[in-house]
């Protein structure tokens, strides 16, 4: 094997590795500028990814343009193969994200909105920036995202809003016997540390499994059965580690079915008003 390596030009290995670094750096820089970046990392890291991508390109160019003679070894071949394999994997993941993402500027399908169980539904407006508070039926609700509410409770804070409005994805996991679960995926850095934060909920019987919903409601303590259900809600193989609040349930006083937010993940979490309403 080494004899074969020796038959190639002495600078070949450096040039190959330079080309791989150039491709990797280019991929990172391009992804950092892509609207699909959130599929992999928290968008606040895009400058870091861009910087690293550019730096890798510079290192790659140095190896391509000013290579040094070096022996080819199995070890070098392996590291080249590993990085090439990753490039293929990343391209596949990116392609998958692109194929599933809506076109730029598309705000999602028109949602239907409804109120409480059994109420008629009506067309909901597309998601847009709104104020930190909203009034429904004469009651004022504070807007926040589900992760912020979860974190407040997890910290043992008692100053969480009595009435709040939040957007969440509704599912009815089999493990919960059809009970509604409101959840959002929260990403601190990357998908590997993402958490699927959830609350059991009631008052959402008219909403179907898999729909996005804007809930105006309040919290109520879970009973013993609810606490047991909250512990089992994370079963199964999932993208994110699912954690369901073990002590509180969301009671929906009003709800509207909405289009899926773009991006659907939560990346920002604030401790006080105005909350990161997404």
């Amino acid at each position, binding site marked *: 094997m080494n004899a074969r390596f020796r038959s190639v030009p002495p600078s070949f290995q450096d040039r190959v590795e330079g080309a791989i670094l150039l491709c990797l750096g280019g991929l990172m820089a391009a992804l950092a500028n892509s609207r699909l970046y959130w599929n992999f990392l928290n968008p606040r890291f895009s400058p870091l990814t861009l910087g690293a991508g550019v730096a890798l390109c510079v290192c790659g160019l140095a190896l391509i343009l000013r290579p040094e003679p070096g022996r080819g070894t199995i070890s070098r071949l392996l590291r080249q193969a590993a990085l090439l394999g990753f490039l293929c994997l990343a391209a596949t993941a990116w392609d998958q*994200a692109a194929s599933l993402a809506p076109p730029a500027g598309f705000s999602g399908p028109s949602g239907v909105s409804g109120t409480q169980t059994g109420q008629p539904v009506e067309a909901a407006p597309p998601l847009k920036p709104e104020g930190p508070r909203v009034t429904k039926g004469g009651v004022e609700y504070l807007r926040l995202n589900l992760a912020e509410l979860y974190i407040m409770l997890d910290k043992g804070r008692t100053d969480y809003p009595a009435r709040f409005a939040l957007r969440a*994805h509704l599912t009815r996991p089999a493990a919960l016997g059809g009970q509604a679960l409101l959840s959002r995926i929260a990403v601190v850095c990357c*998908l590997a540390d993402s958490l699927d934060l959830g609350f059991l909920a009631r008052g959402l019987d008219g909403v179907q499994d898999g729909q996005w919903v804007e809930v105006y409601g309040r919290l109520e303590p879970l009973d013993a059965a609810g606490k047991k259900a909250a512990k089992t809600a994370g079963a199964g193989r999932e993208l994110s580690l699912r954690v369901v609040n073990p002590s509180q349930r969301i009671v929906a006083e009003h709800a509207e079915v909405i289009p899926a937010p773009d991006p*659907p*993940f939560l990346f920002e979490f604030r401790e006080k008003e105005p909350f990161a309403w997404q």
Partner: protein
Amino acid sequence: MAVKPCGSVVDQASFQIFAAIATSIVLEAAPFLLLGSLLSSIIAVFAGDGAFARVAKKPLPVQIVIGLAAGLVLPTCECGIVPVARRLLKKGVPPGAAVPFMLAAPVVNPVSLAATWVAFQGDWSMVAWRVLLVVLPAASLGWVLAAGKDSDLLRPTLDMAHDCGDGCGCGHDHAPHRRLPGRLPNRLLDVLRLTGREFMDMGRFLVIGSCAAALCKVLLPQAWLAPLSANLWLAVPAMLLLAVLMSICSEADAFVAASLSMFPRPALLAFLALGPMLDLKLLPAFLTVFRRPVAWVLILVPALMVYVLCMSLGLSGVMGGPR
């Protein structure tokens, strides 16, 4: 990857999740690995062989303290720490300082400490315990491995065997590495090339480890977590295993640990302490960079020490039960 927002895999191929997670881990860690490679290369090119001689002349306890505290001035995460430690050893930094630095720096650095403090709601005790649980194994291993030289610790089978004195680690002929002294442009070019090769060399471990972590994430049933959290004897080993398998960066793991509030605090500390010292990215790097006995010591001793210390904390009631 535009995943189904609830995270369900009902309509997702497991491979797609695997690819997305592996890609995201590599993309997250790559800048830090690059930073580590750059530091390593700067040390190789600009630091003379005697640059670290003063550290080697210090008494062993002082060497260990220097190694433990170095993370405060050389902040890095575990993603890029091995190439820096390898370079420091090649440049004459004694193992008594280099090993504690390698194990402790991912936690004993401002970013990681601040993240832990924020994630645990300003609870200084969690920050202090985390530091202590990392510092103790790091110092112990620094003490144990201090007697050796770099050649006793590092594997000669690596490309480093062809190292020509500046620690290029890439299998190059020696002649080209006789640097032109004093020419800054040439030295900068050397830094760039060395950084690229070092990144390639350590990048394979990042890729392998990320793929393994993604595979675990796809295959690991989360339903196991709830029953494990109720029993300290199961919770601590479970969180140790989770720390290794999830391979989360030391600057983000505190947020994940804080969310697992159903686990007792000693188990959360086990997660926070072991992850930066041992995960699926570090494991192949240890086994390839260090001699096999040294690598196994680096793998087993921190895991055992963290397990014993966290169980002691839990059983003694110092940390209490679940939060």
